[in-house]
């Protein structure tokens, strides 16, 4: 059974600091996704990681994937308040886009 675990579940950061969110999954998968959710809003796709060693970057966010360790990381560089949101990782189960989500990491960036 595929399980996806994120940690930490809550993260309070100061502006300007760096931090990493971790996503572990229990069985082999060829696709890993990161989504962002703002309060009261729906999920927005951030990154799709398709192969071992894949790295994607957008602004202050960088995601990477290690399929051998079944681990993805979302690294936040020099956090700003606008990054406050809940971040979900999700792993594909099967070939048709059936995603299993982690519980989410609620990030709060304080001045």
């Amino acid at each position, binding site marked *: 059974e595929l399980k996806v675990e994120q940690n930490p579940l809550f993260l309070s950061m100061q502006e300007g600091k760096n931090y990493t969110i971790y996503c572990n999954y229990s069985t082999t998968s060829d696709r890993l996704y990161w989504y962002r959710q703002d309060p009261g809003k729906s*999920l927005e796709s951030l990154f799709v990681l398709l192969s071992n060693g894949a790295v994607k970057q957008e602004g202050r966010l960088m995601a990477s994937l290690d399929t051998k360790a079944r681990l993805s990381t979302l690294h936040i560089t020099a956090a700003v308040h606008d990054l406050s949101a809940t971040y979900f990782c999700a792993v594909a189960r099967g070939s*048709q886009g059936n995603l*299993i989500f982690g519980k989410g990491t609620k990030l709060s960036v304080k001045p």
Partner: protein
Amino acid sequence: DVKVTQSSRYLVKRTGEKVFLECVQDMDHENMFWYRQDPGLGLRLIYFSYDVKMKEKGDIPEGYSVSREKKERFSLILESASTNQTSMYLCASSLRHRGGSGANVLTFGAGSRLTVL
């Protein structure tokens, strides 16, 4: 620019009522999904569909059914609503995976918050 539309943002129903949640997508996606989102539990898959008139159970299908009569529309049905079905329901859609390194990114609707009293 709305791509996945959920018909109701907020609903309040009574225990035992039949509830319909409607979802329409305009991207010609083959796959459609219903998730529920609860605090501390993340998103859990209820049902999904790969094609018209096809449906597959997800991880928590009990108490729910679905209908997909047209490609663009996927309905979630609560035959007899119960208080433990109070939740945020999220519909999503994606293209069919065509092999290779396709991404199958899910596009989500805005959500339907259901309260069952």
